[in-house]
């Protein structure tokens, strides 16, 4: 099976916690490769300027420096970058990719060197065809160099800190004044419904006004249908505020 963005590396840590690394698709990796190629070319352009200046003093020696510098830059850039930046080159940093070992750990130098030295075969016959075929066929999207070095490339999307402020209890919650209603809500509402309401509150700003009103009206109607709520507890309370109050009751225990 080809490696899509949703393919994961499941890790269970010695601390007994499980989580998933998302395996990068060959397409994103190709984009990172293109960026790295551009980086090498840009760096070489800069070096070439110095080479031209220095060649006025000693053309022969400068020629030697240029040949070796290009070789080291083209062959060594990825090894150096991945070793120093913990599995990342500039292209990988830009696309939020990282090379890790097959257990999700940081790489040893041997792994970094091996996966990059094997690029020679992966790049054959042209445009990384061998590496691409291996990456498409491998369940973990590994090219030949990765398979040899025991490494894989993961995608680390930005995970912003969720907005937990909706749980802050500064606002008055009319439901809390009625203990039997609280008990009935907690008893009757399924976890899936509670989670849906929680997510609706978290993402409410992403909705347009009409959709937002409609969604919270549906949720409020659903919760009202689940348990009888005295009118005095919901008088003057908008559907969205009612849903917020229900979620507050479900998730928060106040001392």
């Amino acid at each position: 099976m080809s490696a899509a963005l949703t393919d994961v590396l499941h890790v269970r840590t010695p601390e007994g916690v499980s989580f998933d690394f998302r395996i990068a698709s060959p397409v994103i990796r190709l984009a990172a490769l293109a960026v790295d190629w551009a980086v090498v070319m840009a760096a070489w352009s800069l070096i070439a300027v110095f080479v031209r200046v220095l060649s006025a003093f000693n053309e022969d020696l400068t020629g030697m420096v240029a040949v070796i510098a290009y070789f080291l830059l083209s062959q060594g850039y990825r090894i150096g970058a991945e070793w120093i930046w913990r599995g990342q080159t500039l292209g990988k940093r830009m696309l939020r990719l990282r090379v890790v070992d097959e257990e999700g750990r940081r790489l040893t130098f041997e792994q970094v060197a091996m996966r990059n030295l094997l690029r020679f075969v992966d790049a054959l016959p042209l445009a990384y065809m061998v590496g691409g075929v291996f990456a498409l066929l491998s369940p973990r999207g590994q090219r030949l160099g990765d398979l040899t070095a025991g490494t894989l490339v993961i995608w680390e999307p930005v995970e912003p800190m969720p907005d937990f402020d909706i749980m802050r209890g500064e606002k008055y919650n009319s439901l809390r004044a009625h203990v039997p209603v609280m008990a009935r809500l907690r008893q009757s509402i399924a976890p899936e419904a509670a989670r849906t309401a929680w997510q609706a509150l978290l993402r409410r700003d992403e909705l347009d006004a009409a959709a937002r009103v409609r969604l919270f009206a549906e949720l409020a109607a659903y919760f009202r249908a689940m348990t009888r709520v005295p009118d005095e507890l919901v008088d003057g309370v908008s559907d969205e505020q009612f849903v917020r109050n229900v979620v507050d009751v479900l998730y928060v225990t106040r001392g």
Partner: protein
Amino acid sequence: MIVNLERFIALERPRWERLDAMLSRISEDPWRRLPFDEVRELEGLYQRASADLARLGTFAAEPEARRYLENIVARGYTEIHGAPDKAERFRPGAWLARTLPTVWRRRAQAFWFALALMTAGAVFGGAAIALDPEAKAALIRLPKLQGDPAERVAYEEKSHGKDLVDRKARFSGMLMTHNTQVTLAAMAFGMTWGIGTLILMFHNGVILGAVAADYVMAGQTKFLLGWLLPHGVVELPAILIGGQAGFVLAGALLGRGQRKGVAARLNAVKADVVTLCFGAALMLVWAGLVEAFFSQYHEPVLPYAVKIAFGSVELTALVLYLAFSGRGAVTGTRT
């Protein structure tokens, strides 16, 4: 499902944010060495975040918070359970004096196999030239070597090495990089179950044998030795070491007589393969310098006896180095 999520989040959130910030700083500045207190704090925060992730999983309350925590625990895991710190690992002197020759000896069987293949190729190339001189055009592609060896020797001795005036250094750089590419290719082709490495070793042997036979048959043996020995006694072993690395890889891939899985077998040899590659590359730097600055001068500028003696000394030193340096030290991995 009834949990005091607000209290849990309010209590733990500052620690998550602190861990997130520490991991971001480490990622942005890889050279920074964490003070001991920060290392302890990082580990403590990571352990705590792991426990929080486990708790949040049992609450089954909030996928976004879980994803966020998973992300920082995953990053922390990579840092804390990663490879040992690089700065404490590599010592060039010890690597050169012990690691490289020890690894070479440990994997000597693959070296002898590469040497046998190159020798077979050389015999084939030499025999082809001896039996069919017209094969020269097909076997030796370098224009400089396609002419009559006696004419070339006469020209070289007359030119006093002027052909390379003002381009020796550049020539040296080109030799280094080209030969290193050939050597790395010999290693990388090991992943074709050794077939690519085998062909490369044999092919290099064919060219070498053909050139040698051509010069010997033309009565230019002394020139040949004086020309090839100074750099060849280092360059050829370096390419053979590339082949050795390739066959070590191929051996791990084939796994004859081993019970471990292919991933475990490759894992067991990769440190040795990388050591051999870097060793060969280092040897090729020396060979490139010698070839450009020494090998291209012939009599009367440099007597052949001096060049042959120089090559012999190099070969002896290399053999002694690979055979005896670092004996008794235990380094690298074993299978």
